């Protein structure tokens, strides 16, 4: 009974194992879909549990697997209180590894609080395993799981259709569920979801393929997880500064974990806020200087110039500035009882910065039951609610949209009264904060001149020639014989030049060409000219 199934011993020579890849995953399923059993099976069959742990579950008074069978779900059952209630209520992390990969698996419960817990588990996962009970097929809960995975930026989904033993190992039942759920996943933008039929209890298609489903020709779950390629994002270089390392007067470095991209010695970078330009002088580590470093390495950067850099500064690739905005829109998952509303300030943690911010408005709320967005009347988000919200921070955030850069688009909201982690946010975009009135300076920037009135003493040939020259320099003029005060005010407000042919003004040179140059010089060069001042 306690004998561990002996698999071929993984070729674990010390040197080789130091070169393993790492895959972070999340499992989601409704209560009783067999999640704990599946994970127990992965741990047990990959020899990641010890004999004494197996003995202790064999001795356990609880066994829901059936007579003579080990209840593998007990291997992952966590806290004592939960054990007594027979439920799991939080996010637990499991570890197992094979010769090829180390796996970190976030195990989240499938019932109430599931939104909060799933979001937590999903935030660090590259891949999600969604469980579906073959007897029940696609449930509303399955759609919700997929929706939250999509929201949290997981691109890779594996769907394990479990308890195939109770569905007669039927291919048609499997196909029925697969095609229904594939349509849902497609709508959520998942690229190549991997579907497979399994029996977590019997072990079919979990670690080994088994013989019960010869009609299925894909790899078993573990083999798939060992080989699946996880998309790595090609985002720009960014590193939020964690602290300044200054052991003596000769060394000043900025320590941080690279959030995205790659940095090389000699690279041009900008430091935000401010956007001051400099280059990377050194990439320092305990193990020696590096020529280049890439996310998510933790390094210490030395910059060429003395700049004002502190914790909270962002070092970013030059010419590839992040978005800077005080007002922004973010998808929010709310995680505490006290609701998200506009009555007080929240503290936002973004990268290594803490910034206070206020909710400006809720754009919409996601109805988790129907998975539709709507309800413009929504004024707050409660525990486990999901919605799109606009915030205004007291100083600008420097971010990239979450959809293109997870670490630069993620925020955590903290309740300043209780210090609780109140919510999680995925920034979508900046929102234009207020409408700035168009200024005379901006008009001048566009046209190259200020508003002006030019009086020509009846010289019509000069008028059209002048208009042409102004136009060719990017300016805008209109030629009139004379004009009312109203019209002049309107054109002045618009920043335009009015050429009044019939009106008396200064004496210009008699030759049209020379006169043109004279006037242009006044209009375009002499910025001392007050707007609307007649020449």
């Amino acid at each position, binding site marked *: 009974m306690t004998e*561990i199934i002996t698999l071929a*011993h993984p070729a674990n*020579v*010390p040197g080789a*194992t*130091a070169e*393993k*890849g*790492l*895959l972070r995953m999340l499992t989601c399923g409704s209560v009783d879909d067999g999640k704990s059993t599946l994970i127990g099976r992965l741990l047990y069959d990959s020899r990641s549990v*010890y*004999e*004494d742990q197996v003995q*202790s579950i064999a001795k356990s008074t609880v066994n829901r697997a059936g007579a003579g069978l080990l209840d593998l779900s007990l291997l*992952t059952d*966590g*806290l*004592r*209180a939960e*054990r007594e209630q027979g439920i799991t209520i939080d*996010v*637990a*992390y499991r*570890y197992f*590894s094979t010769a090829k*990969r*180390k796996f*970190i698996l976030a195990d989240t419960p499938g019932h109430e609080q599931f939104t*909060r*817990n799933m*979001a*937590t588990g999903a*935030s*660090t996962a*590259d891949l999600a395993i969604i469980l579906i009970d073959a007897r029940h097929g696609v449930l509303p809960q399955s759609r919700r799981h997929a929706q939250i995975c999509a929201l949290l930026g997981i691109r890779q989904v594996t769907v394990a259709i479990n308890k195939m033993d109770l569905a007669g190992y039927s291919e048609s039942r499997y196909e029925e569920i697969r095609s229904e759920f594939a349509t849902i996943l497609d709508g959520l933008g998942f690229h190549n979801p991997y579907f497979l039929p399994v029996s977590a209890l019997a072990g079919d298609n979990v670690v080994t393929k088994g013989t019960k489903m010869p009609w299925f020709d894909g790899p078993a779950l573990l083999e798939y997880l060992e080989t699946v*390629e996880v998309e*790595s994002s090609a985002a720009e270089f960014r590193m939020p500064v964690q*602290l300044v*390392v200054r*052991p003596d007067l000769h*060394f000043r*470095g900025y*320590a941080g*974990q690279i959030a995205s991209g790659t940095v090389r010695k000699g690279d041009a970078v900008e430091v935000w806020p401010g956007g001051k330009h400099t280059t990377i002088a050194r990439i320092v580590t*305990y193990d020696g200087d590096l020529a280049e470093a*890439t996310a*998510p*390495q*933790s390094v*210490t950067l030395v910059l060429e110039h003395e700049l004002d850099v502190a914790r909270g500064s962002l070092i970013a690739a030059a010419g590839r500035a992040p978005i800077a905005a005080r007002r922004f829109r973010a998808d929010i998952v709310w995680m505490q009882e006290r609701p998200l509303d506009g009555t007080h300030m929240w*503290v936002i*943690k*973004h990268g290594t910065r803490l910034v206070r911010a206020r909710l400006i408005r809720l754009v919409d709320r996601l109805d988790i039951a129907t998975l539709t967005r709507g309800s413009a009347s929504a004024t707050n988000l409660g525990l486990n609610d999901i919605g799109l919200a606009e915030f205004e921070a007291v100083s600008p955030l420097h971010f990239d949209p979450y959809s293109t850069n997870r*670490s630069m688009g993620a925020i*955590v909201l*903290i309740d*300043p009264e209780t*210090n*609780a*982690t109140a919510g999680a946010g995925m920034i979508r975009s900046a929102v234009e904060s207020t409408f700035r009135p168009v200024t005379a300076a901006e008009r001048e920037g566009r046209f190259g001149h200020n508003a002006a009135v030019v009086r020509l003493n009846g010289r019509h040939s000069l008028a059209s020639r002048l208009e042409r020259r102004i136009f060719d320099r990017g300016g805008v003029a209109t030629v009139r014989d004379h004009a009312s005060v109203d019209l002049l005010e309107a054109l002045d407000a618009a920043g335009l030049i009015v050429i009044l042919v019939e009106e008396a003004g200064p004496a210009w040179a008699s030759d049209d060409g020379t006169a043109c140059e004279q006037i242009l010089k006044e209009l375009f060069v002499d910025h001392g000219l007050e707007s609307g001042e007649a020449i």
Partner: protein
Amino acid sequence: MNLPHLRLLEAESIHILREVAAEFQRPVMLYSIGKDSSVMLRLAQKAFFPGRIPFPLLHVDTGYKFHEMIEFRDKLTAELGLNLIVHRNEPAIAQGAHPSILGTQRCCQLLKTQSLLDALREGGFDAAFGGARRDEEKSRAKERIYSFRDTHGQWEPRAQRPELWNLYNSRIHPGESIRVFPLSNWTETDIWHYIHVESIPIVPLYYAKERDAVVDLRGGIRLAEAAPGEPAVRVKCRMRSLGCSPCTGAIRSEADTLPKIIDELLTFRRSERENRVIDHDTEGSMEIKKREGYF
């Protein structure tokens, strides 16, 4: 995905060490002299290089630590110029606290938990790093990286904060504190591989050697004075985890080099804490200790 897993774990741990150093007033590192502490210490050296580690180390000495451990501790901290605080519950030690008299629970409570809480309070520390890993024990699987303690240093499972991405919420009220576990995502195998590839010094007790030992009533071997009825033997053995001499068993082993230790580990069938008496008292006993403030 391109970096090997040990480098990813290293980068994550360094990030955590730096966050805490930047955001807390008075951090301290719990240093137990064991292999996990040794790895944590190396990660701290890396995190602040070329600067010094900006917080002290704290060793809670029960008085029952193996002399090899104390010698190792003193030599290493002197070599690296570290600021080490040693704290002992002297009144309890003077009264002869011993597991055979008090029982393991009570003994641990006095010499470890109480002593630790006293040391943290006396030092005014608001953040304490510990080397615990989530894979060590079932109740640790849900432990956060930042684990919040109330003003009495106690842990309330339902009051723990969700942790998303690498954005840790470090805000606490006066008197509250956190325990931080930078090695949360490491497994025992990862620790040994890292010690190997980084050539991190560890206490010699981890290496197999002919040693004088006693066979206890359960058939296990201990490196301690024999109690009545326990035969003394000379046996090639080593420690898999280091604790107090009365409560920590040794294992028979031929593994006298790191590659051999790793090989042995991969064929092991028993979890590392299995040779600790304390975890077996009652099912879920570790969790009870945690609620009281034990690490």
